[in-house]
């Protein structure tokens, strides 16, 4: 497009790199290095979750049933949609279509915001049901498990989803910033690595949720409210399979 004035110094190339290829590879590697630290950051929480679930299985079963798996599922759906539009935004940048990329980025922000709104209502429901760990009014009577231990489930729930939501908020901010740059034609077909890096971050946050959803919301739903809700049990399954 504007190759006439990229002569000698291509658009977006920083002085201490030799060429755009080197710069892009460095950016990709740097982003993945950062994402590795994020894996282990969330990994610490997941380790704590595993240990406590192993120590107090009943507490986690009943605690989990206080969460609304339908809202969680809706949020998973929304996040997967946002990942799709983010992938399309990168794709459009790759093809040199800033307008289309901009629209997809806006869609991504919209999906991300829907996620946060749903999350807000979920948190609010926890406040209403006196499920805020550490507060004096914390009450938990399900399944006869100890309320003190039930707090551990909820503190982990809030820590995991809270840190994730924080990443979502940061992510929305970055996507918005990148969107304005895309709108101002800051990128070219050859130089769009900021868009791509934003995409990597966004997808990663999505992956975290992919793990959080079954861990927190989907612990044996057949036992919700005393059990008997199985869509399918092992015997029926065996019969179906012959």
């Amino acid at each position, binding site marked *: 497009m504007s190759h006439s004035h990229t002569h000698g110094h291509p658009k977006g190339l920083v*002085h*201490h*790199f*030799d060429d755009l290829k*080197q710069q892009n*590879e*460095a950016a990709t*590697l*740097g982003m993945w*290095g*950062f994402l*590795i*630290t*994020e894996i*282990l*950051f*969330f*990994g*610490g*929480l997941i*380790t*704590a979750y595993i*240990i*406590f679930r192993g*120590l*107090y299985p009943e507490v986690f079963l009943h605690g989990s049933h206080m969460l609304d798996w339908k809202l969680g599922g809706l949020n998973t759906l929304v996040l997967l949609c946002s990942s799709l539009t983010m992938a399309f935004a990168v794709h459009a940048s790759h093809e040199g279509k800033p307008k289309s990329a901009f629209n997809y980025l806006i869609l991504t922000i919209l999906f991300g915001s829907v996620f946060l709104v749903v999350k807000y209502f979920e948190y609010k429901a926890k406040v209403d049901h006196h499920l805020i*760990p*550490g507060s004096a009014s914390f009450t938990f009577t399900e399944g006869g498990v*100890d309320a*003190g*231990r039930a*707090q*551990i489930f*909820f*503190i*982990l729930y809030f*820590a995991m989803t809270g*840190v994730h939501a924080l990443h979502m908020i940061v992510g929305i901010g970055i996507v918005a910033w990148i969107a304005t740059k895309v709108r101002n034609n800051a990128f070219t077909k050859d130089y769009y690595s900021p868009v791509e890096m934003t995409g990597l971050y966004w997808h990663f946050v999505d992956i975290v949720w992919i793990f959080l959803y079954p861990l927190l919301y989907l612990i044996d739903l057949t036992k919700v409210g005393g059990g008997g809700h199985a869509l399918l049990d092992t015997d029926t399954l065996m019969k179906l399979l012959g």
Partner: protein
Amino acid sequence: MPAEHYLNVKYGLKSWLLTKDHKRIAMLYLISVTVMFALGGLFAGLVRLELITPGGDFLSADAYNKAFSAHGIIMVFFFLIPAVPAIFGNFLIPIQIGAKDLAFPRINLLSWYLYIIGALLGISAILAGGVDTGWTFYPPYSSQYSQSHVLLAGLGAFIAGFSSILTGLNFVVTIHKMRAPGMTWFRLPLFVWAHYATSLIMLLGTPVVAITIVLLVVERLFGVGIFDPSIGGDPVLFQHLFWFYSHPAVYIMILPAMGVQSELVATFSRRRVFGYSFVAFSSLAIAIIGFVVWGHHMFVSGQSMYAGLVFSILTMLVAIPSAVKTFNWALTMYKGSISYETPMIYAIGFLGLFVIGGLTGLFLGAMGLDIHLHDTYFVVAHFHYIMVGGTVMGFMGGLHYYWPKMSGRMYPDGWGRLSAMIIFVGFNLTFFPQFIAGYLGMPRRYYMYDPDFHIWNIMSTAGATVLAIGYMMPLFYMAWSWKWGRPAGPNPWGAKGLEWTTQSPPTTFNFDETPIWNEEAYDYDPEEAEAEYEREFGTIN
């Protein structure tokens, strides 16, 4: 002195505080890390003063707890972890691989600011009244019952952790992607290999301690048991998560110093490092094996006996790559043309002290013996032989070796050698008696002790005084040389390597154009070394 270099391109505070030049950021680190070292040393002084006598007559029990905690927190998080990588790694890695800067200069500057914020929080925790948990923040010391300022100190360590993550990230990407043409992996100086291994640990370990501190903070704020056993939490879980980072962090501290050591030994023996690729891979091996041995800190803390057994065996494995390095340094010196400039004095000191520190580490890694030695002064002596005898020796050696490159001027070598020897003597006088006191059963972290241990503690405190004098001397002659030192020229040591082909101090972008490198690492001529040896000492038979 060259007409234009990175120090004189711009003047003024702003040109330093907003710089993106890796060399200037390294100098910023040098100043701030030195300040923290002095502060940490001050608290070490308080601890040693209290221990002159068996009774508790200088500090109260509480003040003593806070003094050793402050010493530990400052030295570990704000000196040992950033010291070599953030100063010498920052300054030298781009020059050694032929790059104009690190891959992400702005992130590099950000990491310095994070370090400063972390350090200020750490200091403010001390000013606000101190922390009495020890540097490990073990619950229940650090849980909601503790009245000290765990939140501030924890936050400081958390933020300093991100500083080290960003430094590691920068190094990994730079070493992978910005090597000059011809600078292949096996032509890299071993300094770079060591920093690569260090950076991997920073990336893979630091986030875990960050989230652990977050959980600790959450526990304190909400009063919910995560780690506090009295309300259903699990203190052993804290120790697992904490040591998953903090054991590898020990290698973050020692590996860069080992990198410096390889440079020093090769340069002042005028020989290629013996078994180059073994030394290179041993760095990676230490980094990787270092991640699976953390449980040897937990032999007596309620961990499963079987897990302890496995950790004990795995711990023995770490000794192998460390021994490979030690033997290879010794073999590099064998038949080399050794000269005893200041950096080499430190290198020789490192070698001896690291061997003692490493071998006593095996005592502690053996589960049965650790039951006896756990939480005694034997442990204190062991890790000071590694951290001070290893890392600080490497740091001082590196400072004296690279100072001419960083400042462009020579310091007086005689003073340098004198201070190096004072430090060596003072160090051994301080910490060797602690091995004995510890083996005899003196527990650590108490402000009073049995009068039977009195003599060992007097020796230790006397040694600490000598050590302090040794550490203060470079402050004066280095500052003197900054202005009045003899100009060093590009290569004052006659060393091999890309960093010695640039002017001293280098220009802002290190090289006018991307260099092309055709030499092997440490390409010293063995015959030349032998001839030099013969000139000085007669023929080798």
